[in-house]
């Protein structure tokens, strides 16, 4: 694949679409011939960002997530953005799903540890998560 290429997709901020976003990224990574380990780790990190946006950013069904893929020669960057309520990165909202004990903190931890580089910016105008991974 030639130098820098970009693709953007916009989808409803609903849990149903986390798998759809993952499938799109999976198809792209296959086309880029990314390594199995790098692919699995980036898919997991991106999925956490999408899931967090679906869970926390908006009232159910009231917003969209924008996912932008930037493909370079050796790495891929995925930017996941919402325009929801945002949170303080140091102190994520402890608003777990009622029937689980899991919360945003674990999702952030997975993003930071599975991506080569993770930048999370959040404020009253929304959240932007930038995740980068070497392709192989």
């Amino acid at each position, binding site marked *: 694949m030639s130098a820098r290429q970009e693709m953007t997709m916009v989808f409803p901020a609903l*849990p*149903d679409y*986390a*798998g*759809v976003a*993952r*499938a799109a990224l*999976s198809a792209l990574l296959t086309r880029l011939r990314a390594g*199995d*380990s790098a692919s*699995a*780790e980036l*898919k*997991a990190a991106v*999925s*956490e960002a999408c*899931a967090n946006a*679906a*869970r926390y950013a908006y009232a159910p069904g009231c917003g969209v997530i924008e996912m932008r893929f930037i493909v370079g020669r050796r790495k891929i960057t995925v930017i996941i953005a919402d325009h929801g309520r945002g949170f303080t990165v140091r102190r994520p909202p402890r608003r*777990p*799903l009622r*029937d*689980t*004990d*899991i*919360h945003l903190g*674990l*999702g952030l*931890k*997975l993003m930071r*540890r*599975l991506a080569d580089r993770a930048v999370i910016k959040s404020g009253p105008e929304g959240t932007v998560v930038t995740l980068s991974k070497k392709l192989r």
Partner: protein
Amino acid sequence: MSLDLQIKSRKVKNIPVLDLEGEVDVYTYPVLRDALQALLKDGQTVIAINLENVSYIDSTGLGVLANSANKISGKNGELRLICSQPHIIKIFTVAGLLGRNLKIFPGEAEALGARKPLK
């Protein structure tokens, strides 16, 4: 690739085994939660969960498992995960959830015989 999660339940040596197939994420996790809740309500304290056919698990799925493991921790129980897939094992390791009541075994025989876990 499946975007859904299917669970089949069976018993081996009187230990309930849940065979999962598909993806465990923020959309599909209620299927796993309900299956585990039914077993916990039934008084089961040792439960094996076969993840060999799970292609992905996210923090929501991890939370359901950790939550169930916590519930049986006072009863000397444990969740025994069956998984040999490196990318799934890595997610558990990175999350730091494995411990006394939540263990991963490389195969069913090891899990049901409670031999040494992978992690």
